[in-house]
């Protein structure tokens, strides 16, 4: 597979390490609340098994060490979008 790195251009997927769904970005922040146990359980273990486009995290380990959000179809492996995870997570409201 080829991942079109937003900074470095097309790179072979061999240079990357795969992690999983971008669900991993949505880490709960309510650690002090009683709902935390359930929310962290959902966060850690529960994933949609999507036939179609999914957003997933790839790490450019043999490159610039950036985490990327790759939008890939699980049916065809076509990659329709690649962006920096840092930007993506900010849009999702993550900061400090």
């Amino acid at each position, binding site marked *: *597979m080829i991942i079109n790195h937003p900074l470095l251009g097309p790179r072979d997927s061999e240079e990357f*390490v795969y992690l999983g769904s971008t669900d991993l970005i949505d880490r709960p922040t309510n650690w*002090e609340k009683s709902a935390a146990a359930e929310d962290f359980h959902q966060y850690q273990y529960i994933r949609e098994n999507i036939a179609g486009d999914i957003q997933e*995290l790839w790490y450019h*380990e043999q490159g610039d060490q950036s*985490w990327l959000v790759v939008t890939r179809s699980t049916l065809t492996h076509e990659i329709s979008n690649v962006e920096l*995870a*840092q930007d993506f*997570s900010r849009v999702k409201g993550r900061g400090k």
Partner: protein
Amino acid sequence: MSQINRIDGGLIDQEKVLNFTFNGQILKGYEGDTLASALLANNKHLIGRSFKYHRPRGIVTAGSEEPNAIMEIGNGAYKEPNTRATVTQLYNGLEANSQNHKGPLSFDFMAITDFLSPLLGAGFYYKTFMWPKGFWEKFYEPAIRKSAGLGTLSTEADPDTYDKGFRHCDILIIGAGATGLSAALTAANSGAKIILADEDFLMGGRLNSETNEIDGMAGSEWAKKTVAKLGAMENVTLMSDTTVFGAYDHGIYGAIENRASEAREDNDKPRQVNWRIYTKRAILCAGATERLIAFGNNDRPGIMFASAVRTYLNRFAVATGQRISVYTNNDDGWKTAKDLNAKGFRVAAVIDSRSISPVMRVPGAEIYMATDVVDTKGRRALKSIQLSNGKSIDTDTLAVSGGWNPNLHFTCHHRGVPKWNEEIASFVPDSSPPVGMSVAGRAKGTMVLADAIIEGHNQGSCVAADLGYKTSESKPASTPVVSYNISANWGVPSGKNRAWVDFQNDVTAKDIKLANQEGFKSVEHVKRYTTLGMATDQGKTANVLAIGIMAENMGQTMEDTGTTIFRPPYVPVAIGAFAGRRRGMEFYPTRYTPSHNWSTEQNAIFVEVGMWYRSQWFPLPGETHWRQTVDREVRQTRSSVGICDVTTLGKIDIKGEDVSEFLNKVYANAFAKVPVGKTRYGLMLREDGIAMDDGTAARMSENHFVMTTTTANAVSVYRHLQFCHQCLWPDLDVHMISVTEQYAQYAVAGPNSRKLLEKIVDPECDISNEAFPYMAAGEITVCGGTAARLFRISFSGELAYEIAVPTRYGDSLMRVLMEAGEEFNVIPYGTEALGVMRIEKGHAAGPELNGQTSAYDLGMGGMISGKKDFIGYTLGLREELQRDDRMQMVGFKPVNTSDLLLAGSHLLGLRDKATTENDQGWISSCIYSPILGHYLGIGFIKGGHNRKGENVRAVDLVRGNDVEVEICSPHFVDPEGERLRV
């Protein structure tokens, strides 16, 4: 009697004679021959035995689809089984041996299975060896194993060299026949970067085998000229003898290039190169493969594809027999009769199953229309054929054509499903090949050469234009239009006689029928039940025929029956070609620490830790057992001073205004208030609350920490930290970089360690106990101005330091330290002594951080901060992870101090039987302590923290050890940590 079947001409060099052997017999062929053509030239039709019934078999095809002519080539370690003779280019000294027989090829003792065939139908093994139950393992399976398998392995390491290569192009053209060459011409003229790959060592495809005329010259001549023209263009790369074997994601193709002739001259050169070709577009011009017709005893040596007979005749100047007959269901089969006539051979008969008038006049041949071949005679060579009209015809070669199957494999590598085309009675590619791939010519089902050339020509310019290249108007090559008409013929009722479908796996029409009758309706199920199409040829000649037979059996259409899924590789690819140069020591990179040479000079014994080579111990003259060495290293370190290379630990430099907040989020213990100049032990958890890694982090300045990780997790921890920063807390002001390879680091441990260091640390740096206490960290200089980092941390439990210098000074520092330490009898120690001392101190390491243990299990529950959110906090609180009866880490010492204790021992109650139900835990790390004078271990036992003082047994059934041990604290030496602080 040399080459009795050879005639004049052909695309071979009849001046260059090559000697080769077949089953020990010395034979001759010519430059340009394949092994198969040379064998046929020498009238060797019987070339092997079939897999299951050991039937005599002959060469059937002239290409990579060959099911029968698979041989062992070479000898000794170089022997390679299952090599297709039809694609093996002949060379001087080639040694070929036939496979699958006991005793001589002409009399195979295993041929008895052929007479037992009524017993050996589809699903035979599944049905027969069910009972009695115990017999399978002891009797049936070994017996079947012995008779199964295609060819034999040398069982020696492969002495050949393989390589990998990478190429990029705009357009990859797969197949250099008439269509591919036409496509290459227009595409290349546009300036696009072209790779043209063909599996044959001679480009031209069927043009080299047929007698077509193109642009007023012989087709093979046109091919040769076109290849030369393309070869002269800078933007064209020709890859002959290169088989594309798979279409992968995003325009990546795998191709295997055969370079055997070069490798024979020089063994360092690769025998094969596994190419990864990155393309923007690909044009599939792979042509078509002929198929058989299922009739009685259709597998005798001498029964061949009609197209193969023409290939041998026209390209290799070999007449496969003296009395050749043709059996066909399409116009193409008649070409064989025509070409034979043209070379002066009389054709015995042409049999066409269609009810039409003869396609052409064949002087001297008996012509039978609307007639089938129903049976054949001749055990080791074809003697005669029996026709449906009752006639018998003496013949030594039967050229069969059941029609052509487009080579559409790559169009289905991304799960495309072929469509049935009634007009050409074949499957054709569907409308959704892999992205970027288009198809032209016979691979697409365009069976008429003139049309295929136009299609290739147009496709080449179309695809180039699509990529933005300017194409110029040009005319496609011209050739007379020769029509292709076919009427499907899958086979004829053959009575008691077996009609073969898959030659290599010995599957007959009857097997398919039986499978259908027994309820196997899906083509995928029939494949697995009968093993149809599962041999090394992957059913290239068998599958469509089998689908036709299934459709007839079940009274359904070809479309409804469907094909099995096509998967890479298209041809068998040696595992060695996937490994390339990554074998033995080159399997992965070798990492040496900066003082590796110094260690080698000390005769260190090395151990591989991941990719690193670490010194395991340093034997002195006279030491005969590793324990002597390790015991000495431990005693000397604990009594004076020892030095250990700890460069391999992961080292990460982290800077930024929010660095302490960041560390507070990734470590389970508190990090917000680490003072500048202090080091802190840190435990990292995974988000699920399980221990991930441990190490230290030293605050060098307000906004600067230096972190260490374990050697094993250096890469994954760094990756995790980057994840935490970029994905979870992107606005934290944190910048990090791995400096594992930038610093050489040494542990200097033992009561004299400070005295030693004071000799090399520059005088302005005060490292006295008061100025530089336990857990201190700081930037210093050594040896008159060399920058270094000093950490007062201890893994051994002694007064100890770790000193880091830039990598380039590592070797010198080691030498300087050893020289300075002479007066203290300093010794270097390796990973074994390091391990002994850490177990004496009860520090958890790899065997304890095993991916199953929580901080509580490790006895570090007290460290966990309850005042902050950190990775692993919430899920680490789960009840299950905090239960008191979990496997908890404790120490173990033998009750009888002379007893041997072994890591891996399981823990049992004193009177319990050694069974799984009674298992209470295990010893994870175990050493002999030279300080305490007995073995001791750390490990895990149910509820261990509350069982100290209790005795259990440590049992190792594998090595026969069963000793009573006491559960104790894992801190065996200096449990109060007094030595650290002096």
